[in-house]
């Protein structure tokens, strides 16, 4: 279904259109050739409009130059959906794209209780989740897990769903984010399928809704969710929700919904303590076939305390570095790989800050660095500060000169050369320069 002539056309257009525009407007297009029509499918109306207005003529010219002048160009919004089975791909129009509400459980099979690393910070949430998975509809209903981003709420929720299905494969379980519930409802209203929407959600054995804080301000969706909620609860079906804060604290959510959340059990999940972070890192590495040394796991775990996603990101970075250099993961390699992530240098490195740090280091005043004084005790630090400004910032030499009391760019150039020379011949200067570099970049 994908058009060979379109591939040739793309190659021509890529030569003609600036890369940023080509990658933004042309590359996301998909093409379907049917008879004498070339239909280009744009991901949304903005792209469709842009292509029609600015590139259609050029595309037609390319098709003509490629020997297909008879092809009629049509630009529509849609996509070619490739099914996972051997069935032929089909074109999906936006009107029908996602027309039916989310089908299937949407559960990630990798998120199980076995792969969840337990610690003090999440012990209660895990225990409650396990209880619910063992006795859906009767243990705690609804179960609300709340806590900051990236701490494992979604993992626990999927684990519950997976265990319910494991125990009873005929159970109807659905996981979705609250925005998806809203989007499904809006589509159902537009397509007059709201009754089917209601039937679908009210017939579930377990409804897992992630991030209910995104319901805030969406009154119509909250109302529908409220009724779904009541129907499931009446029939003793399980509801599990997550929220980024205590549900009662979410502005824009109706009181009656907040009150329902309090009927079951609300559990808090916190950032894992160091030992748990270390265990998580070792676990994630093991899943990718890597035995992460303890000292490395402790090094990363000690420094990254915000959330588990950031821990994973840092681990991926270390593993990529090890792969690139062909070395084993050691503490030194980890330090090197995470040097940038852990440094605050970007914000510290301004000419003004360099002047301040250098002045403090040599116990002189910033004013001295900017003055006309030429005594060695001032001139050398000034030259060092200029060399650091050249190394650590993108400022031009005239700009650096200006910032040092309106000096000429040749003075800056001379300072940089002088310091380079001195660093090679004078250990003390070299050491001082390195210390200042370290202060400014760590």
């Amino acid at each position, binding site marked *: 279904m994908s058009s060979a002539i379109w591939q040739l056309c793309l190659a021509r257009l*890529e030569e*003609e259109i*600036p*890369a*940023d525009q080509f*990658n*933004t407007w042309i*590359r*996301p297009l*998909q093409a379907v050739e049917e008879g004498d029509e070339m239909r280009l499918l*744009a*991901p*949304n*109306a*903005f*792209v469709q409009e842009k292509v029609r207005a600015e590139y259609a003529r050029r595309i037609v010219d390319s098709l003509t130059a490629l020997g297909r002048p008879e092809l009629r160009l049509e630009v529509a*919004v849609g*996509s070619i*959906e490739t099914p996972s089975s051997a069935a032929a791909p089909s074109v999906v129009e*936006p009107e029908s*794209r996602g027309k039916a509400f989310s089908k299937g459980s*949407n559960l990630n099979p990798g998120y199980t209780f076995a792969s969840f690393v337990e610690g003090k910070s999440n012990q209660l949430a895990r225990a409650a989740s396990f209880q619910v998975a063992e006795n859906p509809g009767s243990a705690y209903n609804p179960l609300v897990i709340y806590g*900051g*981003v*990236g701490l494992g709420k979604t993992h626990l929720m999927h684990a519950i769903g997976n265990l319910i299905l494991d125990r009873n494969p005929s159970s109807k379980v659905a996981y979705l*984010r609250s*925005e998806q519930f809203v989007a499904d409802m809006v589509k159902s209203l537009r397509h007059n399928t709201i009754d089917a929407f209601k039937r679908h959600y009210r017939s579930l054995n377990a409804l897992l809704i992630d*991030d209910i804080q995104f319901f805030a301000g969406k009154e119509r969706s909250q109302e529908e969710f409220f009724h779904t909620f009541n129907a499931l609860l009446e029939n003793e079906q399980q509801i599990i929700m997550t929220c*980024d804060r205590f549900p009662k604290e979410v502005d824009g959510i109706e009181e009656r919904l907040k009150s329902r959340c309090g009927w079951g059990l609300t559990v808090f999940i916190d950032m894992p303590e160091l030992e748990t972070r270390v265990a998580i890192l070792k676990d994630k590495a093991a899943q990718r076939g890597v035995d992460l040394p303890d000292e490395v796991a402790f090094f990363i775990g000690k420094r990254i305390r*915000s*959330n588990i*996603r*950031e821990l*994973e*990101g*840092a681990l*991926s*970075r270390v593993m*990529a*570095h090890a792969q*690139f*250099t062909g070395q084993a993961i050691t503490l030194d390699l980890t330090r090197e790989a995470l040097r*940038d*992530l852990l440094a605050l240098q*970007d*914000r510290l490195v301004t000419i003004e800050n360099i002047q301040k740090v250098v002045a403090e280091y040599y116990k002189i005043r910033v004013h001295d660095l900017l003055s006309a004084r030429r005594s060695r005790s001032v001139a050398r630090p000034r030259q060092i500060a200029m060399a650091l400004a050249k190394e650590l910032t*993108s*400022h*031009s*030499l*005239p*700009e650096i000169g200006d910032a040092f009391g309106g000096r000429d*760019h040749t003075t800056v*150039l001379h300072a940089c050369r002088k310091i380079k020379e001195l660093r090679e011949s004078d250990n003390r200067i070299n050491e001082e320069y390195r210390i200042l570099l370290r202060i400014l970049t760590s």
Partner: protein
Amino acid sequence: MSSPSQLPLDIARTPRPSLEDFVPGENGALLATLREWARGTESRLLYLWGVPGSGKSHLLQGACTEAGRGGRAALVALPLLLGHGPGVLEGLAGSGFLVVDGLQAIAGRPDWEGALFRLFNATRDRGGSMLFAARGRPAELGLGLPDLVSRLQWAEPWQVRPLDDAGRLQVLRQQATARGLELSEEVGRFLLHRHSRDLRHLSLLLERLDLASLAERRRLTVPFVRSVLAAEGRDRFSGRGC
């Protein structure tokens, strides 16, 4: 008597950023990682940050082009799309490779942050690979949606390290060659010593010198460059991109 100026032909001579022509400097590991990312053997998230002019947009363009040869890719240069509204992000989750540049542009814009958050989730649900770039790390951008920040933190963080002057000179000469210009080391150093050493600015400067050289039918010499810049009435630049 000098010959009259020629009007340069309107032929696109802008060099096409690619991973091949990126001068790596200290970014060798990053470059290798981007090549691997573009091959798409696994779903992978990368996050690049660096100061303006360090080469982020070049790398993203190159990675998007390379990924697009083997799959469906889309570039989302946020600073350039703000005028369209966040609806421009709809439907992009089907791209196997999503490249998002200039994240700082949407900081503090809840509708855009929400739209990108949804696009992130939808792309990840479909097993797509993503590549992001911004001027700082996710937590430093001033994003108001913590859910978006933590998802960006999921990506492998890579700092794009600016080139030293030798590297900058190499890039300038490479760009000049791509434009059919000869840029001597002397002229290159002249530019580096008297202008912002931000590569984006230097590239724009080269573009203008290219046009002037065509119009005047002169080679790029220090006196010629000096005269062009003097004629413009200024010899420094400002302005920033993604």
